[in-house]
């Protein structure tokens, strides 16, 4: 297992309608991040608590999933080109009941 700093573990917050919705549910707030592909749940928990030290939060659960690469083809004038979407790893972090962070501020 490699040594990753908190900033290396947490790449960026995922800001989409769905992520915002999860983060705004009461009383338990869940925050979604893009994380390092090799990071494990323990590292993610530690990184979140480290990055949001000021809010002094406790991570009670981390769910992770990998969004796999996907082939994309598209026609141009010179013929078809194909490639892949970037695979990435997503972590949904659940904080202790009632705890919140300002996660726009990440990265």
């Amino acid at each position, binding site marked *: 297992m490699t040594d990753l700093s908190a900033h290396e573990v947490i790449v960026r917050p*995922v800001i989409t*309608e769905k*992520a*915002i919705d999860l983060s705004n549910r009461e009383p338990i707030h869940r925050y979604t991040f893009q994380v390092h592909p090799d990071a494990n749940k323990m590292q993610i928990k530690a990184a979140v608590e480290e990055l949001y030290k000021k809010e002094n939060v406790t991570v009670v659960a981390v769910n992770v999933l990998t969004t796999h690469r996907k082939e994309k083809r598209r026609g141009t004038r010179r013929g078809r080109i194909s490639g892949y979407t970037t695979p990435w790893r997503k972590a949904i972090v659940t904080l202790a009941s009632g705890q919140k962070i300002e996660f726009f501020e990440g990265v």
Partner: protein
Amino acid sequence: MKLDVELPPERLSRAVDQAVQRLARRTRVPGFRPGKAPRAMLERVLGQGAVLDEAVEHLVEDAYRDALVEKLILPLNQAKIDVQQAEEGKALVFSATVAVRPDVKLGDYRDFNFKPEIEQITDVTVDKVIDELRDQNATLAPVEDRAARKGDYVVVGYTGSRDGVPFEGGSSERMPLILGDERLIPGFEDHVVGIRLGDRIEFDITFPDDYADADLAGKPAHFQVELKELREKILPDTDDEFARGMGDYADLPALRAEVQQRLERNALDRARHQFADRIIEYAVANATMELPDILVDQEVEVMHDEFRVSLSRQGIAQDAYLKATSQTEEDLHKDLRPRAEQRVKVLLVLSTVAETEGVNVDDEAVQAEVERSRQRYAGDAKLISYFESERGRNFIRSTLRRTAVVERLVDDWMTAHPEHPRLPHIEDDTTTAIEAPSAGSESSEKKEPVESGSPA
């Protein structure tokens, strides 16, 4: 006029919410369906303060409009708005500066001591019209057995030269002239008088000093002239036959009577118009008001436009005109200004009199005028849609109202002075009636063509 408006914080926060919805709908933020982005994201995409700005802008506009309605203010121009405080959680404070119609202090506009002046139609005037009719119906009989006289219709061909060289514009193959009209250079026609058909003459003549072509002005020239046609104007005799030829008239007295009648009607109409103009002048002279510059400026622009149109109708470009008269646009504006002021004054005074007198124009009259305009400007879609718009209708309404006010003043004077002959509105009697009911309709129509030669 300055309006100070303060709105409670709740109004502002409501406006902010609405602004968020509006902006979200038209801003695409990745990760969100249109209209679903939260405020924080909008601010990241559009910039800090964008939401608040949008909210303030809308709120100020609404509040300004409400304030106008509430205080019954009719603005004349775009308001200058100065936002003094716009912070969320605090009251929104702004002021709007706007020009309004000035208060007009009316003086007297009823107790004038002038009367309508009706031009008397005498036999002499009728004779003059009859003579004009004869002149228009004159025949041109060829003459061979005598020399040209003043008043004859001739056709000449001529060649003009200087030092033996023909000059530009100095020649013509066939130039029709009426001798004595002096349409050519002074003295030219005198040489033609006394020669016979087919005669050729040569003479020297000097162009006048004020001749339009500077190269020729004051210079001598030599002309060769040939008389190519000689005709005499023969006026029809003033008899019953002539009268019958002019239309559906039994004899000469009938024609004279008709001419007399028309002239009298025109005289009455003119008298009414002049009388109305004098009343307006009187009312304006007695009223006091402060003229807002903005109104006068607008009127100057309007007049400038009218001027441009009339120039272009004569085929003159404005630039060329300004150059020829060595004026600048500012000079022109300065010239127009006094008249613009007068027009604005008339407008303001009449509107105020209309208010004082309670003159109103109902919707049907406006609608009727819209219909009329639609027919009159049938080809001009833009103008028609203007007339049908709210603004166009208001314009028509206020115009009708001003006309109605003047008509009312004239009619009231008539009622107060029953001994004075009636002055009917001419548009009510287009055919034969001389006595027309003086119903208060509008009179902004075109006047009937003046008499001289209509029944032909």
